[in-house]
């Protein structure tokens, strides 16, 4: 497999994602408006914003599910706008995607779900763990261990809790040997504790594998606690783009203002007991990106 950015020391040369003046219109509605940013290898980027602010649209533009109305998108050195369908498919094999609803095949075991992440590299249909090679099975088990679920390898995926399912989904995308991980509100339907675990896993693989992660969130605290950098979107426009190191919670909350009036984020109010015990859960490793 070619690794277009592998030779580059991170952050110094060709970025993993390069977005310039990106605009996406649906009819006469502008979902994304002149967004530009570069993302160096190994960075954990959180995209925050209200519902409808364009987070999903941005992620979908990055793996070629949408074509931009204007602007340029380059992912892993591939010009997503002008690439042929074949190149896009090849690109998708290298880009992991994590869904809010996990999207596991419920009746298959965790192991087989993880194995299915390798389908893009395999020929022909597969059904049953034994239809995958022993090497792949070993790798799948390692990935399950990595997300802390090796002991549930042969349990049916739909018997797992939401947080566990999301971790299996992450293991599945690791099976792709991805260069970039896109996660669209991966913890939006999880309880605080499971959310913490999932974010931990994402953060850990970002650092250990030196993997680039873009994660859309609507919890301010999650972004502050786990990401290296935050981009805030409001009505499709970038209203914030800062490393988490020099960012304070009130600054981040500004993203949720509409016409100068603060709007409650979709997450519970900060004065409610929803801090998720985040401070205790995880050290905020902001120093890592400096």
């Amino acid at each position: 497999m070619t690794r277009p950015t592998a030779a580059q020391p991170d952050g110094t040369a060709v970025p993993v994602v390069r977005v310039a003046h990106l605009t996406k219109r649906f009819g006469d509605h502008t979902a994304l408006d002149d967004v530009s940013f570069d993302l160096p290898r190994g960075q954990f980027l959180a995209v925050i914003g209200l519902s409808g602010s364009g987070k999903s649209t941005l992620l979908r533009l990055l793996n070629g599910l949408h074509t931009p109305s204007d602007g340029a998108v380059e992912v892993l050195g591939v010009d997503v706008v002008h690439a042929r369908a074949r190149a896009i498919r090849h690109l998708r094999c290298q880009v992991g995607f994590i869904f809010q609803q996990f999207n596991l095949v419920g009746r298959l075991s965790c192991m087989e779900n993880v194995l299915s992440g390798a389908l893009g590299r395999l020929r022909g249909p597969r059904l049953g763990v034994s239809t995958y090679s022993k090497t792949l099975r070993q790798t799948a088990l390692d990935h399950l261990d990595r997300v802390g679920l090796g002991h549930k390898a042969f349990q049916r995926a739909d018997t797992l809790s939401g947080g566990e399912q999301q971790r299996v989904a992450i293991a599945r995308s690791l099976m792709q040997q991805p260069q970039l991980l896109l996660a669209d509100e991966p913890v939006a339907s999880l309880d605080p504790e499971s959310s913490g675990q999932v974010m931990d896993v994402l953060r850990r693989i970002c650092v250990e594998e030196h993997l680039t992660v873009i994660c859309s969130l609507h919890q301010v605290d999650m972004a502050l606690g786990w990401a290296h950098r935050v981009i805030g979107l409001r009505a499709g426009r970038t209203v914030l783009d800062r490393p988490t190191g020099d960012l304070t919670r009130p600054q981040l909350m500004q993203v949720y203002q509409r016409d100068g009036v603060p709007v409650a984020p979709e997450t519970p109010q900060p004065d409610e007991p929803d801090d998720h015990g985040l401070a205790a859960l995880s050290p905020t490793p902001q120093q890592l990106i400096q």
Partner: protein
Amino acid sequence: MTTPTNSAERPDLATTAQAEPTPAGAATDKRALRPPWTRNRIVGLAAAAGAVLAIVVSTRQVGVDPQRLIDGWADLGNLLGRMLPVEMPQPSRVVGPILDTLMMAVAGTALALLLSLPLSFLAAANTAPSPAVRAVARAIILGARSIPDLVYALIFVRVLGVGVLPGVLAVAIYSTGMIGKLFADAIEEVDDDVHHAVATVGATRLQAIMTGVVPQVLPSFVSTTLYRLDMNVAASAVLGFVGAGGIGFELYNTLRTLQYQRGLGLALIIIALVVIVERISAAIRASILAHEHSARERRRSRRPARDRPPATGRPRLSPPWTRARLTRQIAVLSAAGLALVSFAGLGISPGALLRAIPELVASIGTFLPPDFASVRDDLGPAIVETLTIAVCATALATALSLPIAFLAARPVAPHPVVYHAARLVIVLSRGLPPLVLALIFVSAFGLGPFAGVIALGLGSIGLTAKLMADAIEHLDPGPRAALRSVGATRVQQATTGVVPQVAPSFVATTLFTLDSTIRSSTIVGIVGAGGIGFITYQSVHTLQFHTTAAVLIVIFVTVFVVERFSDMIRKRIL
């Protein structure tokens, strides 16, 4: 700028996700890479082995010999050649029988509705006055559906004479058994809270049922009845085979007298008839469902109904005439009108109906006691043949339906053209009653169970593939989207993302097909396609009703046992 190394990172991030220490390297190698042998897995494999064994034994019994298959298809080609060019019958000669067929279906369904309404409330656990009453009502419903409608028609024609009345009664009784069961099941699923809430205000039992249960089951009752109506059109189209009126009589005569070109013309008319009624009934059912859905949504969001009338100063004491209410009233009135017109058009007066009942009851005496002795040697092999036909036909139908279902499921189909072609195959298969197919295949393959297997197998695609395709379409698209995002091909997405998810529903569908082919396989013998139907036909024809009674008991027990068996497994897996 420094990059954090992995080793520096690990202790820092060892949090909840790593709660269970992960065994490293060498240790993992020793762990199982295959799924463990759980009880479910063993039971599943044993069941699959049993099914394969049943199919192998059955195909041997039926004698599916490759040479015969090849010869048969050649004959079928010849037969089709002789059917062309198709000769459409003169309208003046078929309009009458077509109308009769439709009116028989409507009248029979209407009678069945009248009979099953009280029966189902007596048969449902939550509305039955006592367990004893419930048991009796359930037994009546069960008994009614365990004899195929064509067998009822065969007997009623003997007792009441040739004509449409025996046909209507046959449809009515069989349908009572079919919709009575579905009605009773729907009542038992009603939210008991409402029922109890009404009861706590001091309402009588009947009041509680009328207010607390009826409104909740009404939509399901209507769609069950509509579904039965379109099945009954297909059923009525062949009742003429045994002299119970309608277009089946014409078809039977033309095919028997080897007028194949006219036969094809009539068959096409029957297909068109069934398909048109099915489309109408499906459209009405879909609109009821949609209406129910939107009503529920409105209730949830507490938004006012769009068709709410403007508020007037004076409070009203009767419900306002909204569009929905008007539509409902018109629908009820036209359904009732249609039923009345059908009875009138068929020349069946209430008097004739009432006179038929004592005649039928009196005739029961001529059937008793059942005489097993005269058919002792034939009955065993005949019922075995019936079972093997059903098993083989189910296997054939499933094998053919699997690929068709995937092509006929919108999200999985490779191309819209393929999708529509596959849906057309399904519609055609549904439109051809099994008995018509059996008659055609007997001409091609000769008398015997082989023709029965092919006829029922092809005739069941309509049911089997449709249920399977619908199951695929109703699947959560999420897993498929995820597999697409890892770069899986279409075929890989279907194998890994769809097959495991629909497997239980496919097994249930196959059992449902078995349930349906076992009923049909008891009647294809009437046209010489093997099984117990031939003995039934012979005994009725030669007026040996004591023998008929014995055969009916055997059919009853067989259908009953197969239905229980398939119900039991279905409940288990779903």
